């Protein structure tokens, strides 16, 4: 019974390169944190995180090869999150009286935590 080896697995070289790329991107992300970019810092950092995630998805989780149902399942998780993130912004972007002022808790909590 011949052991036909999946071609994608033959050499460890591409995986080591991906590993190095991930660590490099991590370094860049760390560096941007200390640059004082203000509002742009999170955008860049999460962009780099997205690239890292894509690398892990494609190489380490073997999504390489012809696009298949696995691709659809991999992406649909993030696609559904768009609904939650996006549509709640219709509320919070122009709700009157947001962010709320912290009210005085005049009547203390009647309920002891933990029950």
């Amino acid at each position, binding site marked *: 019974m011949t052991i036909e080896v999946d071609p994608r697995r033959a050499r460890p070289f591409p995986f080591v390169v991906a590993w190095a790329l991930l660590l490099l991107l991590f370094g860049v992300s760390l560096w941007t944190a200390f640059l004082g970019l203000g509002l742009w810092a999170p955008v860049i950092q999460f962009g780099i995180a997205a690239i890292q995630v894509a690398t892990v998805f494609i190489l380490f989780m073997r999504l390489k090869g012809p696009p298949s149902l696995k691709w659809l399942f991999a992406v649909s998780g993030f696609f559904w999150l768009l609904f939650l993130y996006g549509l709640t912004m219709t509320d919070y972007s122009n709700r009157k*009286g947001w962010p709320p002022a912290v009210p005085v808790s005049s*009547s203390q909590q009647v309920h002891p935590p933990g029950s």
Partner: protein
Amino acid sequence: MYRWIPFWPDTAAVNAEVVNNLYIAELIVSGLIVATVVAMILAFGVRYRRGSPASRANLVQKTWHLEVGWTTATLGAFLILFVWGASIYIWLFQAPQGDEEVYVVGKRWMWKVEHPGGQREINALHVPVDKTIRVVMGSEDVIHSFFVPAFRIKHDVVPGTLQTIWFKANKTGVFRLVCTQFCGLQHATMQGEVDVMSAPDYARWLTEQGVHESLADQGRDVFRAHGCSGCHDENSTVHAPSLAGLYGTYVHLQDGSVRLADEAYIRDCILNPRSFTVAGFPPVMPDFSGQLGEDEVLKLIAYIKSIGKTRETGR
């Protein structure tokens, strides 16, 4: 006008009538749709029951135009109702200045009402008829919901911010005030009355309460007691934004955004000054969130709004 409709709730406000017309329109459209479905099921059920002689030849499996026709017709009818409903909603939920203002504080299982003149009521709200009443609502603990069925108005009262709603009663009488957001053990008894009175009765009622110090005056005492006058008074040396005539104007904040100075904004500034520093002023205002009760904040707001008025009359 609605007397001839059976089991109809009483209608006692301007917006209630508008909602009534919309509700009747919805009932008609919905009734038509349900009637069509019932008629079709009965007709087909009788005509094509097993053993009936009707011919079953050239049975139709799919006709796009019939399906699309029915769907666009119903969608079109309901979109008109959507636009009509949305316009009322936008008109209802943007409270105008109003002739009278009332402050309502929801606390577990009671409604505390305060009039600008200083009169205080529990689970009761006396208002003049044919006047636009603007209700400013806050909650001290959980989410309540201010609902007057006769006026068809309702708004949840969320702890942490102030909400405003308005109504204009057009019929005198006593109407029920109800809390519709479950708030604990006695939620069902957290009810009250809205007593709509003619103008002279309302004036006489106000004087009968025997309270002379108006809410604004009480606010001024709180303003001095907590040292706000130290910075915000006309002749104070501290570089702080002047509050005279602040109410109703637009304020430019440090982070570039512009906010209308309404009750919610004034309340935010008092209790969370750090996130609302006005452009060009140092963020030095101390945090009062621990020391001021909900009622005192409302008094301060009434006072700050009154400074605005005296300046206009002064000109």
